[in-house]
């Protein structure tokens, strides 16, 4: 006996499909929810990845004999769950431009900062997530170490942002 000969069964099936569709499209997986979830995960991952970038920069500038290439690019793939996230880090040097009140990426060897740009993406990403920041160069810090503020009770954190903050505080003092 086919479905068309059993209208009640067909009605129950249609109503079930409708409820499942409503649950999926309105509550469980609303439009953009997966993208937002990946966006959040890759954001956390990118901030954690900054520590690895920091370590690589330190090795490259202080322990490598060859000069640092400009731009330097590192591409890492990190798998979490069933999704592979690609983190692409591009490092240039940077000047602080007082006119723009911002850091300006450059390839000038004399520049005192790194311009770090991390792009996180995954398969099916609408747009990649981008993180841009500047930090003091290790090559310059080795010549003139930046003192850590004595009156600060903050825990010593060697992330690029915190090193930058420490440097700015030292300069203003």
């Amino acid at each position, binding site marked *: 006996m086919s479905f068309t000969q059993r209208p009640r069964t067909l009605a129950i099936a249609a109503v079930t499909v409708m409820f499942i569709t409503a649950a999926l499209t309105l509550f469980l997986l609303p*439009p953009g929810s997966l993208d937002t979830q990946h966006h959040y995960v890759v954001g956390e991952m990118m901030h954690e990845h900054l520590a690895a970038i920091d370590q690589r920069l330190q090795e490259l500038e202080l322990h490598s004999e060859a000069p640092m290439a400009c731009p330097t690019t590192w591409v890492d793939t990190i798998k979490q769950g069933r999704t592979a996230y690609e983190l692409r880090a591009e490092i240039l040097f940077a000047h602080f431009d007082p006119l723009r009140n911002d850091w300006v990426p450059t390839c000038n060897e004399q520049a005192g900062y790194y311009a770090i740009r991390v792009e996180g993406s995954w398969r099916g990403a*609408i747009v990649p997530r981008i993180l841009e920041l500047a930090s003091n160069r290790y090559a310059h810090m080795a010549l003139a170490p930046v003192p850590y503020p004595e009156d600060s009770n903050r825990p010593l954190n060697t992330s690029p942002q915190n090193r930058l903050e420490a440097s700015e505080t030292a300069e203003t003092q």
Partner: protein
Amino acid sequence: MTNYTRFLPRIITVLALLATAALMTHYTTSLRAYRRMTEASSLINHWSAAMVELSFQDATGATPTLPCPAITQRIHDGRHATYTLAATITRTQAPQPGMAQPEPTCDDTPYYLLEITSGWDTNPQAVRVLMVQDMLKARENPELLMLPYLRNEPVPYTVAAGSRLEAHQ
């Protein structure tokens, strides 16, 4: 009674299928809007940076090169739509307390007013950014301006004088 029991399941089936179709249409429409908004918002960041750079070049140049109002537009083929990036650069007066929105002017002031939009064919101004750049320091010390490392710009943009402001006045 016979008709009622005979037709009610069929009516319910048809209504449920219509509701499912409506839900699917709503989902695909919303997803398309989400994708377009996300892409347009991302594009406007790069476009804004290019327009701010253009203002700096104008303010620090020996002679200002931008017409007033300067209007520029670029078409960008994205993954989910073709986007129109547009910008209008004028000047404005110094920000005053209580000023709701900066008024565009063509007076020679160091405050550059940038109106930047991004959108697609049916919604060309989906994302709109209005910003004022203080170029006083840049004008007084043009030699201090540092040129940034430029990433590859896919399509050059052109700047044309617009007639919108004159028409408004």
